[in-house]
């Protein structure tokens, strides 16, 4: 076990794990999965900044937490309202990590599709999960995935058969109530939730999934969610994830996707919370023709810390990846963006694009953006760019010269910056809902950064073309 992890934090997690109710009659491999997860987490401990992948984020606040169990009674006593549930649309609700049947609705799904809570799936159809659940994560090298796996208990499973198209989006809501742990342990004050999502989309199937993490109370805690998406040939999944949890909660979300021939994954991640967030996505393009479009918008406020760690692995030829994450940093917040793109030796004719423009709206906010291209094939097209700047002073002045007040002009421009990400969501109802949510979040910005004329904007620009072992190579214009 790593010495770095505070004993108390680890002990509280282990005690919590030991007290987890065993499910009698469950398939043995499921318990093996948990045990492996636990062993891998004990081995690694909580990640520290000494690890390359965690250089930008200090999990100190996690080390200070003592975890206890939140009882099933605690969550239901809190008054929860769902004003924005859409009638007739499938929606699964999880309260403090556990499936809430009363608040969920599994309706409007076509035949050829199964949506069910993980706990039920593990009991009823374990064979359908075998070889899928736990296949895309690597607990030995991802400590928080290991921790989540150790606590594997509930979440959502979506199985879509060949050729099945889901017209309506599926909504998965994860609510943290902020209820105090009911443990006898006096010192335990933090509650943890470990939801898991498994999606198996067979050939030519299609679905849109809207994942949202919300809080209805304030309390320290941890949400660690692991998602595994298996996309069969020509399957298409649109994943929209919104993180808007309470600032005292640490949020970890890790998405792993595997795309077969001609499959397509569109992912949109919105990080709007005020606390410590680490959001990972890893997409592996394993067969030719696979395509992924990754979009993200993150907002840092107050003393929030937002870390996005993305990996696109081009493991086959003729695959496309297009990634754009935009950040707005206010207050004393810190933003971190790491974008790894790996192009394997056989992945010829790869087309990989990545960009990360950031807007610093306050003097004390900062952003640390690092694209990492590792290209081992020679016939590829790859580009990345990262810019960090302030609001365009010329645009700001123009709006003021037309009578728009300074605060409103700033807001207009900041919303416009976020809009290109929001507007690329294909599903209209989700797009509108998120546009509102993002606009609302941006309305609370304080912003004290000086306005800098666009021509004098201090800009860090990085343009990198096909690169191999550190040496610049010329771009192939006719790669596609």
């Amino acid at each position, binding site marked *: 076990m790593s010495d770095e992890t505070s004993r108390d934090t680890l002990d509280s997690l282990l005690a919590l794990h030991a007290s987890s109710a065993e499910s009698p009659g469950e398939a043995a491999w499921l318990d093996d999965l948990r045990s492996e997860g636990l062993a891998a987490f004990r081995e690694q401990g909580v990640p520290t900044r000494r690890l390359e992948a965690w250089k930008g984020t200090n999990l100190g606040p996690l080390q200070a937490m003592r975890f206890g169990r939140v009882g099933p009674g605690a969550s239901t006593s809190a008054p929860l309202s769902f004003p924005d549930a859409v009638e007739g649309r499938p929606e699964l609700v999880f309260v403090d990590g556990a499936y809430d049947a009363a608040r969920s609705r599994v309706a409007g799904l076509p035949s050829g599709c199964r949506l069910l809570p993980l706990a039920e799936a593990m009991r009823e159809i374990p064979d359908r999960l075998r070889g899928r659940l736990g296949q895309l994560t690597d607990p030995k090298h991802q400590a928080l995935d290991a921790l989540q796996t150790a606590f594997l208990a509930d979440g959502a499973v979506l199985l879509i058969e060949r050729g099945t198209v889901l017209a309506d989006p599926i909504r998965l809501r994860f609510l943290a109530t902020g209820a105090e742990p009911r443990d006898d342990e006096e010192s335990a004050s933090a509650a943890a939730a470990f939801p898991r999502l498994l999606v198996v989309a067979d050939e030519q199937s299609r679905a849109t999934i809207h994942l949202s993490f919300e809080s209805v109370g304030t309390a320290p805690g941890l949400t660690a969610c692991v998602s595994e998406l298996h996309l069969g040939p020509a399957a298409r999944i649109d994943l929209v994830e919104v993180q808007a949890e309470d600032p005292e909660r640490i949020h970890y979300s890790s998405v792993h996707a595997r795309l077969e021939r001609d499959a397509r994954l569109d992912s949109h991640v919105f990080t709007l919370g005020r606390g410590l967030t680490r959001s990972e996505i890893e997409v592996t393009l394993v067969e030719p023709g696979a395509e992924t479009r990754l979009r993200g918008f993150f907002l840092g406020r107050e003393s929030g810390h937002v870390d996005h760690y993305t990996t696109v692995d081009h493991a086959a030829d003729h695959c496309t990846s297009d990634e754009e994450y935009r950040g707005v940093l206010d207050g004393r917040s810190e933003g971190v963006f790491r974008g790894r793109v790996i192009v394997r030796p056989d992945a010829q004719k790869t087309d990989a694009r990545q960009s990360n423009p950031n807007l610093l709206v306050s003097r004390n906010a900062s952003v640390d953006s690092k694209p990492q291209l590792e290209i081992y094939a020679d016939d590829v097209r790859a580009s990345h760019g990262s810019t960090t700047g302030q609001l365009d002073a010329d645009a700001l002045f*123009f709006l003021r*010269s037309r009578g728009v007040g*300074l605060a409103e002009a700033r807001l207009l*421009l900041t919303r416009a910056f976020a*809009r290109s990400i929001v507007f690329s969501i294909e599903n209209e109802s989700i797009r509108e809902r998120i546009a509102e949510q993002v606009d609302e979040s941006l309305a609370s910005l304080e912003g004290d950064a000086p306005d800098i004329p666009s021509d004098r904007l201090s800009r860090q620009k990085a343009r990198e073309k096909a690169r191999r072992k550190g040496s610049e190579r010329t771009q192939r214009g006719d790669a596609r």
Partner: protein
Amino acid sequence: MPEAPLIEIRNLHATAEDTPILNGIDLVIRAGEGHAIMGPNGSGKSTLSNVLVGKPGYEVTGGEVLFRGEDLIAMEPEIRAREGVFLAFQYTVEIPGVANNYFLRTAVNAMRTHRGEKELDAIDFLTRLKEKMKLVEMPDDMMSRAINEGFSGGEKKRNEILQMMLLEPSFCILDETDSGLDIDALRVVANGVNQMRSPDRGMLLITHYQRLLDYIIPDRVHVLSRGRIVRSGGKELALELEEKGYGWIEEGDAAGAPA
């Protein structure tokens, strides 16, 4: 007795990035009057217009500007706009992600709120917008597009005039509004400006060329050189400049300046 001036510029000195550009401008414009300022490149024409609307990067180092008797320089740019000062920019900005119609409604309502009037709802605003758009011959789809994004030079200028018509300022400054326009676009723009002329509105046209003044006839013409007005006259002065060029003004100015 003449009416109180709309705008009164007294001995105005200003710098741009610490370089003195305006070296004592005196100019009085009354409601109903149209003035033109002409001058060679670098004489301070654009600096004057930018100083009047409070663009950052310019500093007033002396003199004063009274707008309806109030200290204009002390006002924030948005307050100047709400009080009725408008500049149609020579170079417009493109603002991706902000729709033209949304911006215009926000601006119109900021003005109305400032004047103590009720905000326009979407329908009333649209009616007014369509009417003005027709006057500047602007296609409908330009309104849902982002501000000036992908607009041609002529469309950008027409968009400036459209903003002026919607905001109904009492003092309009047009900075090189004719630059880059072909004759048809110039006619449309000039037509828009002429519609705006009224007994309670003042106009200041800034131009390098006399051509614009064939379409928008000024009451007074001033010649700017080295940050000062060196000659003033009627509209015939513009024709004289067109004929002789600016050389004689600069020479005369240099000769008349203290050694």
